[in-house]
């Protein structure tokens, strides 16, 4: 059985914006297993980034964790305050890779120095050793002639190369968890595959647990062991990649999958989700997706669904799993996928 490495429970994160309070994360829970790859999917603004930023204490200064716990190595890091406590975790145990490599590097310092800075900080190495280690890392992330590249500036690198440097910074001190916030969104399609492959390689080499934040279900299908689906600041369905792709339970997950061209059925128009996500300034009652769900139940407007267990690895927050609910037929695409699932598992 795989071991849990980080466990978030009922996390509520709020932001204050010009005197108004916005609830960005509304009691989300998550279990992260060692050595596995978790993908968090959801549309923009669903809180994917904010949620994971709270694992490294990098919420913007106007945001805070209101309640809930995030347990990592027997510590509740949700209660952490100030740089001092975070310095034992951030960059050292949990590292992050950001979306846009073009702006993620300091334009005025050589990339060597930007990697070496971390090595020196967390490993307390002398400059010469740190430089040696830096060059090793550069080689690991697939940068050729690293000695020459060491003293170059970011603007002398292409986008893909820069992302490799950002990844190098992230793995420089052997973190346990690597959070990749849409690491390929800003890159060319041809480069995307290379970066994904690189992360997979490093995951084995450094024994990393990886969290991908993405809205690209193609990426998810490629890399993920576990998938968490987020909507309006909550994880509404959580399971293995197989659970989510072949046995989805939440109407939002259905809608999400149905809108994938790859899964669509030939000859039928592609599904698209109507409406817009809710405004997080307003209090959300019941199931946040209900207003956009043509087949919502009355109770969806009244009471928020709890997590129902589908299988030991699979949970979903939808009243459809309540025994009293009417039997609801999932859309064609999902039925199609379920049939496949049954076929495969037999």
């Amino acid at each position: 059985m795989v071991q849990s490495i980080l466990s978030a429970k009922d996390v509520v994160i709020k932001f204050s914006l010009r005197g108004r309070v916005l609830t960005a994360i509304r009691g989300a829970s998550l279990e992260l297993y060692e050595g596995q790859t978790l993908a968090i999917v959801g549309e923009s603004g669903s809180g994917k980034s904010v949620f994971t930023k709270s694992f490294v204490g990098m919420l913007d200064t106007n945001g805070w964790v209101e309640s809930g716990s995030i347990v990592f190595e027997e510590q509740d890091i949700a209660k952490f305050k100030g740089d001092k406590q975070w310095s034992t975790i951030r960059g050292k145990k949990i590292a992050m890779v950001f979306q846009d490599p073009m702006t993620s590097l300091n334009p005025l310092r050589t990339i060597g120095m930007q990697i070496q800075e971390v090595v020196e900080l967390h490993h307390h190495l002398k400059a010469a050793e740190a430089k040696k280690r830096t060059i090793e890392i550069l080689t690991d992330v697939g940068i050729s002639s690293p000695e020459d590249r060491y003293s170059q500036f970011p603007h002398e690198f292409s986008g893909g190369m820069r992302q490799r440097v950002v990844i190098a910074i992230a793995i420089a001190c052997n973190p346990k968890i690597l959070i990749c916030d849409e690491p390929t969104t800003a890159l060319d399609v041809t480069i995307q595959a290379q970066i994904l492959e690189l992360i997979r390689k490093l995951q084995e080499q450094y024994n990393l647990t990886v969290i991908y934040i993405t809205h690209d279900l193609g990426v998810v299908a490629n890399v993920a062991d576990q998938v968490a689906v987020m909507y309006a600041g909550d994880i509404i369905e959580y399971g293995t990649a197989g659970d989510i792709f072949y046995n989805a339970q939440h109407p939002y997950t259905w809608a999400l999958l149905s809108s994938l061209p790859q899964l669509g059925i030939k000859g039928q128009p592609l599904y698209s989700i109507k409406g817009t996500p809710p405004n997080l300034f307003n209090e959300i009652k019941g199931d946040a997706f209900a207003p956009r769900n043509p087949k919502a139940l009355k109770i969806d407007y009244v009471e928020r669904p709890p997590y129902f267990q589908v299988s030991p690895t699979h949970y979903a927050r939808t009243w459809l799993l309540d025994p009293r609910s009417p039997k609801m037929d999932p859309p064609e695409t999902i039925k199609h996928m379920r049939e496949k699932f049954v076929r495969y598992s037999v």
Partner: protein
Amino acid sequence: MGIPVTPIQHQPKPVHASKHSGSLFNYTLKRAGQSLITVLIVITVVFLLMRLLPVEGYFGDGYDKLDASQREAVLKSMGLLEPWYMQLKNFYVDLFRGDLGTSIIFRPQIPITEIIGPKIPYSAYFGFAALLMSLSLGLCLGVFQAREKGKWFDRLGTGYVVFINAVPAAVYFLFIQLYATQAFKLPILFNKDKPSSWILPAICMSLGGIAGYAMWIRRFMVDELNKDYIKLARAKGLSNTDVMFKHVLRNAFVPMAQYLPTSLLMTIAGSLYIESLYSIPGMGGLLIDAISRQDNPLVQALVLIYSTIGIFGLFMGDVLMAVIDPRIKLDKKGGAR
């Protein structure tokens, strides 16, 4: 507004060079050429404009006492009766030999270089002291404001910056001279043998600079703080202090560097207000005297000196920027940062 010594009034402008790729040397050369052309245009235009002024300006108080032929003789001796292009040529020839002409009214018949020469050290001393103070205090103020953004210290600093920027310098200079001299028993006028008389003018001169540097470094730092690479630097595990000094301040200082040469050079030119208020025998007070006495050649010479210094300062600033910012040489797009 108003005094040339306050160094940072311009918007930070994109560096002209960035449109053209090429080496630092080529850039410097191109930029030097541009500055030289500007200087020549300014000299020519100022000289020609001065020729448009009524000739009375060249006689001082004696104009009414002279008859027409005497006037003509005076003008002729000054070379003012020749066609304008000949005058311009003569002016350039003289300039090339380091001759800025002679004063007519302020100190008649004395070469302007001789008038200005002994005044430079005073302006330079004060300017240098003011520069040191404004740079150190201004940067400290701005850095702490950026760190404490939104808190009371930041507000206090912003209040100071607003006051200094909004209220004309002459007004608060007057009140400082009026009340600070009484409160601290300091002399009201400058006396080069009395060290205590150096204090107030130097402080006054630095007030604008402090506000300017504080405002810009705060703005640049806040800009930098919102950038992605700062997020990554924090995600690396760097402490706030390290992020502030190793990344933010360093990068925020780059656009500031552009103005350093200008303020350094402008110290020679001195502050117009302060020098005349405290009777400091420097260059700034001289311009005011020259204007009030309508000494055309002296005004012309001073205007040329000030503009040349200004143009040279901007040139040096751009070159300095190109040296310290590795992106500028290769960036093909304009001023992207």
